[in-house]
């Protein structure tokens, strides 16, 4: 089997598994316990926190371990909005956020907040100008994902940060779940106040997320409990998974540039291949960089549509050929609705209802891409007689 679903979840790295097993076996004590075992376990948590802080050039106290990207997004957005609700009632996000952000804002919208959902262009990026126009005196938070999980478009986070630096009372949340280890991240330089990431997207264990809250930003906790993680995320910490996650994040960021340059080359190869199959239409930009040499597409995601074909059928066909890919994002692929993200990009019903995502990992080589390419062609040939013409436009 060739695994092309790294956006959904990555295979854990061997050294991460080893770390997790060793910690799990030796440090099973509750970090809140007073005895030596507890002290050691809580020491491991602090070392993990310091390691994570080091990776991002920030302070350890600014990081909270959560259960994953969804919790981090929820905790950061709801926690900050609850804390600062008397400062304003206007929130800004985009139309293409991950459900853990999008639905959170939907909920806040029902609770009396005014939410602006910024539109995106055909490539899946917002215009910084639109954001500037949307800002009002009443705005308390702007939440924008770094890399879109479905099509891989990259938002102009540094420029947005620059704009928001002039609006100090507006909190800037960035969902970095798909970008950590794939694109350079400078939280301080960009003026990011809140940031989310997830370990299992970078070769780490499932069930561990990171939430960054810049020093001085106060949050209200979603959970009540024993006061762990400075009260922000109570509940006995999963020490083994957290240590392993810290390692995974480090390995993903270290030397990421070279690996991602290689991944970018694979991406262009795959994009070129898709261009040769007339039935398939690429989503987002062809090239990973624009004319100004800014990243516009993540190096690990290629998204295309097969108009007229139910994407599940295509995915299952590929599966029979030994290839694992996904339709829209894995979290929502069971829903049989056209993709909200693709609709927002203005691609129309037919394309929005037939999207397929290939996401790459470190282990892929040119041969794998060529093999995949051949199979894409075969699958299209096999399915072509079953296209539904009425769904093609």
């Amino acid at each position, binding site marked *: 089997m060739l695994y092309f679903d790294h956006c959904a979840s990555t295979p854990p790295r061997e050294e991460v598994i080893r770390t997790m097993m060793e910690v799990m076996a030796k440090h099973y004590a509750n970090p809140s316990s*007073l005895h030596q075992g507890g*002290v050691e376990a809580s020491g491991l948590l*602090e070392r993990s*926190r310091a390691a994570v802080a080091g990776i991002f050039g920030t302070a350890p106290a600014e990081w909270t371990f959560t259960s994953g990207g969804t919790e981090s997004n929820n905790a950061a957005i709801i926690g900050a909005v609850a804390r600062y609700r008397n400062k304003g009632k206007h929130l800004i996000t985009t139309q293409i956020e991950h459900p853990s952000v999008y639905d959170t804002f939907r909920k806040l919208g029902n609770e009396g907040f005014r939410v602006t959902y910024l539109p995106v262009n055909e490539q899946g990026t917002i215009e910084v100008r639109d954001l500037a126009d949307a800002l009002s005196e009443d705005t308390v938070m702007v939440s924008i994902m770094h890399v879109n999980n479905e099509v891989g478009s990259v938002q102009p986070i540094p420029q947005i940060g620059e704009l928001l630096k002039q609006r100090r009372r507006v909190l800037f949340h960035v969902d970095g779940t798909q970008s950590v280890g794939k694109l350079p991240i400078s939280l301080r330089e960009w003026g990011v106040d809140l940031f989310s990431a997830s370990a299992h997207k970078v070769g780490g264990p499932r069930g561990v997320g990171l939430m960054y809250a810049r020093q001085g930003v106060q949050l209200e906790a979603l959970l009540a409990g024993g006061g762990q993680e400075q009260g922000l995320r109570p509940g006995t910490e999963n020490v083994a998974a957290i*240590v392993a996650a810290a390692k995974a994040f480090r390995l993903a960021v270290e030397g990421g540039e070279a690996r991602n340059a290689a991944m970018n080359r694979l991406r262009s190869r795959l994009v070129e291949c898709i261009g040769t199959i007339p039935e398939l239409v690429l989503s987002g930009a062809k090239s990973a960089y624009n004319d100004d040499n800014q990243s516009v597409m993540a190096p690990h995601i290629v998204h295309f549509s097969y108009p007229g074909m139910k994407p599940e059928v295509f995915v299952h066909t590929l599966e029979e050929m030994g290839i694992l890919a996904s339709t829209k994002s894995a979290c929502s692929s069971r829903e049989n609705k056209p993709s909200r993200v693709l609709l927002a990009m203005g691609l129309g019903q037919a394309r929005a209802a037939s999207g397929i995502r290939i996401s790459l990992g470190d282990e892929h080589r040119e041969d794998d891409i060529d093999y995949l390419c051949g199979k894409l062609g075969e699958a299209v040939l096999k399915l072509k007689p079953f296209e539904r013409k009425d769904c093609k436009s």
Partner: protein
Amino acid sequence: MKVDTIMVRFGEYTTKGRNRGFFEKRIYDQVRRVLRPFAAVQMTRTYGRIYIKLNGESYELISAKLKHIFGIASFSPASKCESELEVIRETALEVMHSLPKKPSTFKVTMRRVDKSFPHDSQEMNHLVGSHVLRAMPDLKVDVKNPEVELRVEIQPEGTYVFCEVVPAAGGYPYGTNGKAVLLLSGGIDSPVAGYLAMRKGLELEAIHYHSFPFTSEKAKQKVITLAQKLADMSGVPFKLHMVSFTEIQTAFTQCNQDHLIITLMRRAMLRIAERLAEQAGALGIVTGDSLGQVASQTLGSMNVIGRTVELPLLRPLITTDKNEIIRIAEQIKTYATSILPYEDCCTLFVPKSPSTNPNLNVVLKVESFVPKLDEMIDEAVAGVETLVIKPGESSAGKTSAGSDDWF
């Protein structure tokens, strides 16, 4: 306004005569050390001032660091311009326009250090003030109580224009007033005492007494965290001596003199501290005592306790109120750590009614009955475990838990 320069003013030691150069060099070195991460900045030192040219580095990040450097009284974000009347007038206007809130009154304060500048201070006040008033008609001059003081300094190398004076830590540069040891308990007071002592230019080494198994490992971690904060404030590595006090403390509990136990403990602690001070070349012992706060801090108790040692006992908090101490602890960010609920050896075995007025002769007598007290003190000194805590490191890096290749 484009903040391109930070003007740094020094603390009270500027009144010092011949030693001033020494103090200034120390603070210059300290500022340079703290600003090392900001590669582009350029520093120049003039008489009683440091000018930091930002060259594009962030004012916010740098000012956050400067605020905590001992010896800096205040600093100002300034716009530097050529010493030419029109340029100065334009820069002054720009600075006024850039204020976060529009003031209704202001005044101009001129300092003309460069006496070759063609207009004198009085004239300049008028020339700059009138220019600003023409451009901002809603503004009025108020020389007595202005909302904004627009300051212009004409120096030989150029003119600095600024409105804001940011207060900093003040005091003396770290380590310019000698060296002492600090008794660091883990409570609220002792870190504050340490901070105030350091601000006065004292170099410190800390001593912590623990009574494992009566005190927990977490109490020790807490003290390491506090020491880390002190190291961060001073900006140089900070020594923390861990002394095992269990044997001495349990010996005292056998004396059947419960009401004196605190007095006896404090005396033993001071003896150990004095020995460690000698080893460190320190000439004083800093404690967090505050008059009347607890039984050992009445004047009567302090008399009996203090007579144990010959080194001067320095008590920066002696006349401060608890609320005031808490306020400083919050400001230096030690409070949250200090209130973590782990027992230290001062809160262990506290008798129901400790003596607030112990009798020196009785205390001496009781001490003479404690078997091998001197040997135990020797042992405690010999067995001291010393940690060197480096600024900017989290205490997490020092926990021994785990193997390095896990991370």
